[in-house]
């Protein structure tokens, strides 16, 4: 009886994952969708604890202990994290899921060697356990490296012939995995731990050379890896809800990764192999710096802004870091009350994650229709009086259109150079995240307004008010 009810619960859980994911892909229903999926997860977890065959009541203490510790830690860290650190947090949680799948494989392997003779282990189960172990380990370690990179704890490092080493290592791992599964050598247990260790190493080497600017794509990819690792668990236990949840995330995550790549006009291979920040950027970095930059102060900027008809604000990571979204909104409202038309130009990959700027500006109550996506705003720059670039760099770099040797060549950018005046707010002349020089700063129409985004915007608000 219990078993039948549990299957029904799993069915409801699976369907709620599908509905939740569907709702998550529309702005109006997204928040409810998240709750629907969370509901499905809750009943699946409770159902497993109380109805699954073979769960010993003597182990309830451990189960609830783990659930309570995890819930408290998870809620606290998720509530405490700042909006700017969301991407790192997602990566970290993803790593936890990968580690969970990895440990499940390790335990199930010992069960398997316990129940069968070495050399006569069932191939199918062993294959699933191995895949769960390899994918889970890569996802776990890779996510930790990605987290370290986004939070600035880990730099970009590339070994010589890194890509060859990586591919070689992956082939080697799969090779011994196949050998261990199908030939059934006497040292199966040793090989299992060797495969585990090498998978961890591969996880590090896989993410290490990829530039910080590409981390969102990598996190999305690792996210779908963890989905597949979870699905392996579904295979192992013949558990439909794990299978549905895992495969859904695996396929939706892969598509999402491709969509993100497309938004940057780059292919996935290009992201994974063409390492950002290395190669040609070294030489081209010095070439335009012969030009002159023009500095402007807050007072003059305020005058330009107040007497403009149309202003477009281009937000970037600098806005997020300085937590300047509220004062940015204040400036926008102030200018609007003076009769200036203000819009925001949202580049699909501005910030550290697609949609980063939308979330950030929505937080400070900027009206939704003021956020204009790149394709729609680009034709408007020619009729714009002042473009205010707040802490963005690579997404307005004309090198993406003009310099084939540039690592960001081919990425669609915001055509801010078509506007009458361009004011770039930056902390210093340092290069952006991709580590490349920006010619825009040396153009005669461009003025630089140096300082922290929040401080400078606050000054601008005061200056506009004083005029």
């Amino acid at each position, binding site marked *: 009886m219990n078993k039948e009810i549990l299957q029904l619960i799993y069915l409801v859980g699976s369907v709620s994952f599908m509905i939740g994911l569907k709702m998550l892909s529309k702005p109006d229903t997204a928040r409810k969708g998240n709750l629907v999926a969370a509901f499905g997860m809750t009943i699946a*977890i409770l159902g*497993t604890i109380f109805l*699954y065959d073979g769960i010993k009541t003597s182990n309830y203490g451990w189960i609830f202990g783990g659930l309570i510790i995890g819930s408290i830690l998870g809620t606290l860290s998720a509530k405490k994290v700042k909006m700017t650190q969301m991407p790192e947090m997602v990566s*970290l949680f993803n790593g936890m899921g990968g*580690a969970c799948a990895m440990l499940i494989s390790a335990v199930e392997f010992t069960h398997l060697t316990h129940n069968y003779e070495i050399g006569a282990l069932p191939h199918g189960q062993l294959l699933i356990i191995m895949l769960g172990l390899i994918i889970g380990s890569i996802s776990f370690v890779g996510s930790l490296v990605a987290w370290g990179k986004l939070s600035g704890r880990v730099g970009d490092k590339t070994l010589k012939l890194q890509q060859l080493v990586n591919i070689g290592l992956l082939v080697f791992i799969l090779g011994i995995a196949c050998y261990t599964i199908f030939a059934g050598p006497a040292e199966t247990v040793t090989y299992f731990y060797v495969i585990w260790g090498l998978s961890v190493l591969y996880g590090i080497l896989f993410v290490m050379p990829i530039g910080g600017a590409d981390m969102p794509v990598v996190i999305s990819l690792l996210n779908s890896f*963890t989905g597949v690792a979870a699905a392996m668990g579904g295979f192992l236990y013949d558990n439909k809800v794990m299978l549905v949840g895992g495969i859904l995330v695996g396929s939706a995550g892969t598509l999402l990764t491709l*969509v993100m790549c497309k938004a940057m006009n780059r292919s996935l291979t290009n992201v994974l192999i063409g390492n950002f920040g290395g190669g040609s950027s070294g030489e081209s970095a010095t070439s335009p710096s012969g030009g002159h930059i023009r500095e402007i102060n807050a007072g003059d900027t305020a005058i330009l802004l107040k007497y403009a008809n149309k202003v477009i604000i281009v937000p970037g990571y600098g806005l997020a870091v300085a937590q300047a979204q509220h004062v940015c909104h204040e400036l926008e409202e102030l200018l609007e009350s003076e009769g200036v038309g203000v819009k925001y130009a949202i580049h699909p990959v501005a910030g550290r994650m697609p949609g980063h700027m939308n979330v950030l500006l929505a937080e400070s109550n900027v009206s939704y229709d003021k956020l204009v996506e790149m394709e729609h705003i680009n034709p408007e720059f020619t009729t714009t009086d002042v473009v205010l670039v707040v802490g963005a760099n690579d997404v307005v770099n004309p090198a993406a259109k003009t310099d084939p040797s540039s690592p960001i060549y081919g990425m669609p950018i915001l055509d801010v150079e078509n506007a009458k005046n361009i004011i770039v707010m930056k902390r210093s002349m340092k290069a952006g995240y991709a580590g490349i020089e920006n010619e825009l700063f040396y153009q005669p129409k461009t003025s630089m307004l140096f300082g922290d985004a929040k401080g400078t915007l606050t000054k601008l608000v005061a200056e506009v008010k004083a005029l």
Partner: protein
Amino acid sequence: MLEFINSNIQIVYLVILMIFVGVELIEKVPSVLHTPLMSGANAIHGVVIIGAIIIMGQAESMFATILGFISVILGTLNVVGGFVVTDRMLEMFKKRK
């Protein structure tokens, strides 16, 4: 191998159908929602915790108990943290006019 596939043919069908469903579900998602959607999907693959609970619940050896306990904690972090972070991201959208 052939035998393995044949004896699990229902699951193979399920996997293939789910791949298509996953792709269909999030087609044409606006870029505004890329990050929350990724985060929501991240929470959903936390379903791996069910495996951890099964291991923990059936654990007899010390080894299984310790690893099972750790994996229940890790899985819960993934699920709870994932859903809460997603909700916080989406909270920002609710107040718009």
